[in-house]
């Protein structure tokens, strides 16, 4: 099934609760639906899958219209090429792992199914567990089964509903890595519902913020984070820029890796992988020091020429959030109001942005 086209979604309903959402997910992207609990994100996801119907809806993938209330069209869920990973995994308790996957392969000719099951088991690192039933699996294993089952559908769109919510932090991190690795192997459009911005920062390429049933912001993660324009984060999270970077060069002697994100060039502690490997990096605003003069004798690797774009309040009387342009990339820096005054950080002023190599969080 050739999958990926652009996913277009438009939903409107008055009851049981008001919903007015419209967005597009480019092919191959990971679009996060982010917002507080009860904002309607899961409903949107279910509507994409055809599990929820609203009075006024359009769901189209590539050229195919799955839901079009205006034209009276509705493709039932079981005919849509979607894979759905439920929050509690929804594994069938009476089926072994192998049978769960077999169940989802109904669209494939019987002769191909065995091979496909083996491939999926390998992909999700489930070999050896094929004969187990869900009750005999750990939480992480169950999630991988749910993921494999969703992928068995050869979906055009993979839908994840709070995939990491039910899981402890360590497991969550390892599962994020799994998902990232999976995306490198299988290119498909992913729509992910989450209320944890870490998921967004580490995995998503696009972001749709849904608050109280409507979209309050939409765009690429890089753009929204670097402009600190994500509503609903408030003071809960330190402003940080999330960018996709790739490995430009490896420096094994110094145990450093050179990364490039657009025009941004950074040195970071070794990130394994050949040249060209994509890495998601986050740079917290607190980690960016501003200087008017190039310093010496510091443990700094990254001294970047920047220009002040804007200065806005930093969540506290004495703090300021400075928006910087580094070439055509953007950075944020959280400093004291005093520093702003002392350094003369007005709009357009040139300044040096100092970023510790260690401060660049790389997620591969």
């Amino acid at each position: 099934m050739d999958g990926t086209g652009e996913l277009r979604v438009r939903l409107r309903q008055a009851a049981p609760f008001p919903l007015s959402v419209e967005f597009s997910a480019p092919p191959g992207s990971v679009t996060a639906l982010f917002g507080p609990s009860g904002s309607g994100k899961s409903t949107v996801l279910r509507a994409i899958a055809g599990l929820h119907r609203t009075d006024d809806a359009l769901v189209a993938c590539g050229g195919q219209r799955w839901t079009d209330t205006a034209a009276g069209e509705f493709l039932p869920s079981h005919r849509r090429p979607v894979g759905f990973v439920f929050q509690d995994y929804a594994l069938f308790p009476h089926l072994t792992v192998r049978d769960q996957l077999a169940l989802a392969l109904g669209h494939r000719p019987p002769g191909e199914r065995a091979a496909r099951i083996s491939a999926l088991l390998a992909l999700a690192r489930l070999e050896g567990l094929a004969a187990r039933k869900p009750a005999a699996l750990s939480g992480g294993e169950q999630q991988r089964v749910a993921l494999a089952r969703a992928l068995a559908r050869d979906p055009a769109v993979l839908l994840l509903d709070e995939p990491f919510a039910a899981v402890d932090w360590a497991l969550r991190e390892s599962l994020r890595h799994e998902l990232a690795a999976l995306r490198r192997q299988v290119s498909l459009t992913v729509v992910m519902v989450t209320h944890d911005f870490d998921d967004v920062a580490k995995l998503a390429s696009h972001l749709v913020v849904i608050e109280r049933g409507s979209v309050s912001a939409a765009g690429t993660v890089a753009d929204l984070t670097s402009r600190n324009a994500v509503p609903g984060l408030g003071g809960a999270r330190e402003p940080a820029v999330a960018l996709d970077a790739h490995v430009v060069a490896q420096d094994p002697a110094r145990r450093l890796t050179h990364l490039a994100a657009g025009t941004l060039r950074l040195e970071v502690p070794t990130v394994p992988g050949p040249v060209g490997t994509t890495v998601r990096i986050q740079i917290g605003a607190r980690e960016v020091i501003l200087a008017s003069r190039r310093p010496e004798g510091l443990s700094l690797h990254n001294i970047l020429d920047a220009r002040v774009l804007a200065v806005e309040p930093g969540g506290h009387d004495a703090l300021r959030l400075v928006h910087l342009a580094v070439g055509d990339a953007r950075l944020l820096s959280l400093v004291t109001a005093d520093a702003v005054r002392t350094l003369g950080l007005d709009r357009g002023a040139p300044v040096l942005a100092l970023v510790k190599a260690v401060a660049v969080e790389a997620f591969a």
Partner: protein
Amino acid sequence: MRRRAAIPRLLHGGAATLALIAASVASGQPSPRVAHTPPAPLIAAAADLKFALDEIIVQFGRDTGESVRVTYGSSGNLARQIAQGAPYEMFLSADEQYVQWLAARHLTRGPGELYAIGRIALFAPHDSPLRPDPRLSHLARRLSDGTAGRLAIANPEHAPYGRAAEQALRSLGLWEAARPHLVLGENVAQAAQFAASGNSDGGLIAHSLALAPELRRRGSYALIPDSLHEPLRQRMVLLVGASPTAERFYEYLRAPAGRGILAGYGLTLPGE
């Protein structure tokens, strides 16, 4: 190899087995209307004939090689069932008015004929404090001094023998006193069962039942004078659609063999 679908297979197997059993049992028992060999005709008989008719049926089988099936009940109940289409071929009523009622509805072959004049008896089990006598004097004494226990009769509403029992009690002026002590049987056989069970003092039941060995060995009885109640004119009739076997059974009851057995249970016609 593939252990999958074990449960669905079990389900299919179970359902198939069930269906197979049901089909085989269902087909093994021919419905009386679908079989090619007609099943034994069904006779509706008043409950007082319980032992007498059972004996006649056995004898009929020996003499002719044919069999009939019988359902006992109160005459009123049976008449109602016949009117509602119950598949009886012959009706032996303890009260001819039910036969006449059915005849008026064109459900019978003619008016039928009398086969017996019934009598009632007071029956008391061996360990009962009640001593039966034809004028119910001991019963009357127990009723007046307040020591009387329960007394079983058939339901006068639809059982002729129950009606006769009520008439007898009224004739003796005992009805009002006896009423609170009465246990009503759905038919006179059930009344007899109540009477013999030891949970009552006794009962006013059919003479034919009191003469049966089953009751004989459980207690004693006294025949109640027929002047105390309206005659129990017991009439039998063939019903519309009766089969030749039923006709033969009808004739058997009129013949000496049948009449002889009936006489043994006190079921005679005047002149016998």
